[in-house]
Structure formats: C-alpha cells, structure tokens
C-alpha cells in the first residue's frame, strides 16, 4: 500500500517552526509516505482573516483545496489550526450554492474547486491510513518509560460539528499514537484545553496563565514532555514557556514536541533530522533516553 498526499505546510512550518517541516518530511520518508508539497498554497486564514472577511478566508481555502484536487490527492495538514479552518471550509464548500459563490471569487485566482479534496491532519493520517499496527511495526526505538502529555489544542477538536474525528471531550487519537510508539500517555484535564495563543498579543497575562496552568498540571501528573499536533500551541507552550514560568512563579522546563518529532524518535531517526535542537525548551532530557 503506497500512500500519497498533497502536503499543506501552513505558515508556521515554513516560518517560525521549521523543525515541524523537517520532522514531517523525515517521518513521511521513514514511513514510505509520499508527500507532494503545495508550494503555492496560501495561509488558511487561521480564523483571523475569517473574523473580518468570512468569504475571503473561505475562498483562500477553496483555492488551497483546489490545488490538492488538481493533483487528485487528499490534503495532509500538520497544523491543528489549519486543520480546523480547512475542515470547516471543506464542510461549507460541500454546499453547492456556497461552492458556486466562492468559485466565482477564485475563478480567476487559481481555478475552481469541485469539492473533491479532503483535508486530513497527519495525526488522523497515521491512525486511519498508516494504521496503528503498521506504525507500531515500524518502531525501532520504543519510547519505553517515557510519560507523554498529549496536548490537542482547540481547533483539531472543536467545534466537533466540523471535525468529527475525535470526541471533543474525550479524544483518543494522540493517546493511541503515544502508545503505539511505546510511550505512556499522561491523563490530565489540560489535554483538551486552550494554549492561549490567539490572545497572546491582546492579553499576554491571560495567555501565560493558560500555558502555565496546563503545563504545571501535566507536570504534576508526571509528564516528561508534551506532544502537540498544532504548531501554534507549540509556539505558546515552547517559545513563551519562560514567560509562563514568570507568571506562575514556578520553574517548569517542560519539553514540547511536535507530533512528528515524537514519532520520528521512535522510528529511530536522528534528533537533528527532527529539528529537536531548535525547540526553545531543552529537549535533551527526552533525547538522552532514546537517541
């Protein structure tokens, strides 16, 4: 079985989180998954453009999905936020009248979209298409003894009307992947909570309280590191962790891994190939155990 996807990087993997792009390519290669990068794809709007201009965001995503459709492939995303926005666009564009309205906008901006490409997050792809059993077979370095706190982020779970992969209150996909890699998932309430990234510019203190509360809860429950399928969560939990420590007046030092970084470690890939040296919070305590 050969798997092939139109790879939608989103902005973060091409900007502030290059390690997400690196680790995605490395893991796909190791799993024999072929990725055709959509180099001309745009930002999904992240829900931010849609706040002011709903149809602009929808049209941008119709254009993005059309690029996957032209290749005859489903689209693979690596960002929980992109996935949420694209899932919503996909659902809205399944309505013929909406699609016709939006196709008028994109007719001279990349061509029309017929509604045939499905956006699918790497996390879902691993479970649905690669399969947990096959993933487990590919593990050469089981992450035995590693306690991993799953951090889903909002947009891969909510609103569930648009997503329908995981139960928004009791998701299982990250836990399943963590177990397949030989590690142990940590159960804590913060796993389905918000990282606060959308308000980090407006209300930094509130955002840092969210980061701090979730990280400290995971730490208290014994997590050695967190794994997230969303680079925006990653930014807030990793880049801003120092500020969260100040807000909570407690040292935290919690390594935050992108999903493909954790998978890659278990697949025996070199830490440098997974960009683990780029993470702001030192990942060496995790690496030292397995690499």
């Amino acid at each position: 079985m050969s798997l092939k996807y139109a790879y939608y990087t989103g902005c973060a993997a091409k900007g502030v989180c290059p390690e997400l792009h690196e680790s995605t390519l490395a893991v796909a290669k190791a799993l024999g998954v072929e990725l055709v990068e959509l180099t001309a794809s745009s930002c999904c709007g992240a829900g931010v453009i849609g706040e002011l201009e709903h149809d602009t965001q929808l049209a941008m995503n119709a254009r993005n999905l059309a690029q996957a459709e032209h290749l005859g492939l489903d689209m693979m995303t690596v960002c929980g936020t992109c996935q949420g926005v694209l899932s919503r666009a996909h659902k809205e564009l399944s309505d013929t009248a909406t699609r016709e309205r939006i196709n008028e906008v994109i007719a001279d901006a990349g061509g029309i979209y017929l509604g045939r490409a499905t956006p699918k997050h790497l996390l879902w792809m691993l479970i649905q298409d690669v399969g947990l059993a096959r993933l487990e077979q590919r593990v050469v370095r089981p992450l035995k003894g590693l306690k991993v706190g799953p951090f889903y982020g909002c947009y891969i779970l909510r609103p569930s009307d648009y997503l329908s992969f995981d139960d928004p209150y009791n998701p299982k996909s990250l836990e399943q992947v963590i177990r397949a890699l030989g590690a142990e998932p940590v159960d804590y309430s913060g796993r389905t909570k918000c990282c606060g990234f959308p308000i980090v510019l407006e209300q930094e203190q509130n955002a840092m309280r969210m980061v701090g509360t979730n990280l400290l809860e995971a730490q208290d429950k014994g997590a050695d590191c967190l794994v997230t399928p969303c680079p925006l969560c990653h930014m807030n939990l990793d880049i801003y962790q120092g500020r969260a420590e100040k807000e909570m007046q407690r040292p935290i030092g919690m390594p935050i891994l992108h999903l493909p970084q954790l998978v890659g470690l278990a697949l025996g890939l070199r830490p440098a190939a997974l960009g683990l040296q780029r993470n702001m919070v030192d990942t060496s305590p995790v690496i030292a155990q397995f690499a």
Partner: protein
Amino acid sequence: MRIEIEIERGCPEEGIETHRERFRVEVPRHVTVLDTLIQIKDELDGSLTFRRSCRSAICGSCAMRINGRSGLACDTQVESELRRFGRVVVQPLAQMPVTKDLAVEMSPFWKRVRAVKPWVTGEGAEEPAWPVARESLMDQIHVEEMDDASRCIMCMACFSACEVATVDERFLGPAALAKAYRFVADPRDAERTERLTALNGSGGYWDCTRCNQCVEACPKDVKPMEAIVNLRRDAIRAGLTDTIGSRHITEFIAIVHQEGRLNEGRMPLKMKPNPLDLAKVMPLALRMLQKGKLPLPYHPPIPRVREVRRIIDRKKGST
C-alpha cells in the same frame, strides 16, 4: 440497568467541605442524568440539592458539569456518558461559588449579563400605546443575523466552560457577549455604536481566545464565540480600529496579502510596539535567531501570490 453515579457535594454555609459521594441506582436504559438525580433525591437522599424545572432543555435550570463537560443534565443520557467515559461524574458549574451541592450562586453570571444592557434602547424600545398602532417590522436578514444569539436560555453552561473566564474574572464571558451581539444586530436598537464602544476594552470581545469551548457546550446551538467574532467584525467596520485586536486582524491580512502566508516574525513589529516592549522581546528574539526559528522580516512571497491578492482585494472593504 444498574448504574453508579458520582456526585460532587458540599455546602459552605453549613461548613460541609467539597467531597464526592457515590450512588448506585436501578434506572431505565435511556434515563437522563437529571432524572437519575431526581430519583436519587426521591429514593436515597432527600438533601441532594440541584436546580431543575422543565426537564426538556427549554428552561436552562439544570446546567452542571457532567464528566467535565458543562451542559444540561436533562439532555444528557447516562448510557451515552458511560459509553464515552466509562463513568458518570457530576459537578456544579465552574466560575461560580457553590451554594449547595450542584446549585451555584449565579450572581457572577447575571452581573455580566446586566452589564451589556440586555434590552432594546431608543425609539423602538418605548412603551407602545395600546393597542399597538404599528408593528416594529424588520427584514428577514436582520432576523437571521441575530437568530443564533436569540436562542440563548441563560443556562450558564458556556460561562462555566469558558477558558478565559477561568483565568480572568474581568471577562464578560460568552453568554453576556452573545447577548450584546443580539442587540448590536437588532435594527431597532439606538445604541449600536455605544454598545460596540463599551465592549471594545478590557473584559470585552477582544479578550476571547476563540477556544470554541462555548460553541461545543451550548445546548441550544447559540454559537456564542461566533457572536463574539461578529462583534469584532462590526467594531472594525464601525471604525473602532485603535485596539491590538483590530490591528492584529488587519495587519495579519496585510502580511498575507504581501507574502501569501503569515510571517510571524513581522507580526510583533506591526503591532506598533513602544521601544520598551521591543526591548522586552529582544532576548527572546535573539534566542529564536540562534535556534533558526526567527523568520526573516521579509520573506519571498509564495508562487502565484497574485491569486491570493486578487481574492483579498476583491473582498476588501465589502460587507
């Protein structure tokens, strides 16, 4: 079927600390959480306290946390909870002090709702002479704009689920802001701009983190977060643009217009920071630079960026 339900109880007034009690009851297969609580009160412990009235998801009285999810006990089946979570744990709503067991003191919620002036103001609001000489008609499009927000039954589930309310007591929260939008969208209201201005600051619509918890929790599909997003849109269109939130949206669009993607390295510079703020972010920026995580301030645009610009330009300024 015989089930076990765990209930968080307590009563500060009587000095009873928060604790959990387990009850085992024989219930019909499709029983709701509310009917189970009523049965426990009838048969096992008459002191168990909770609010309820209609039992039909109309009155909004029986909101509580069920397996961590804020929602109505009357439209939640025990069996589906057992299937999803393998247990049924019932707690009072969050964000408000407990009066007794599952009943909370509601004033923090009502204080917020009252703060948004939840009534129609101006001419349309005057007491009409009886019999009414003329109806206050409105277009279907106006009805549709406020239809979602009008459905609210004030059950407080969204406020309990709100992640910002959890960390900041100044935040008005989803229900109150959805109510505010209902009147902003009402064509009869005379204080549209005043309402948008009043909620433009701290505690208002820009403080929402768009986590969608309220959308997920709402038993009436009010979609409070969408109402908050509409308030932001209406504020920008009404010219209330001197906020970080507003600049964030317009600069986001400007960067995507230029590069096709969001350049996170440029966003902080676009927010008109003062030199002190810039000095504060410098050490972090330097560390990111060392790690190869700081995007260049000017990134080459994506291929065919003109298509993206055409989409943005076409809709720019339209309604």
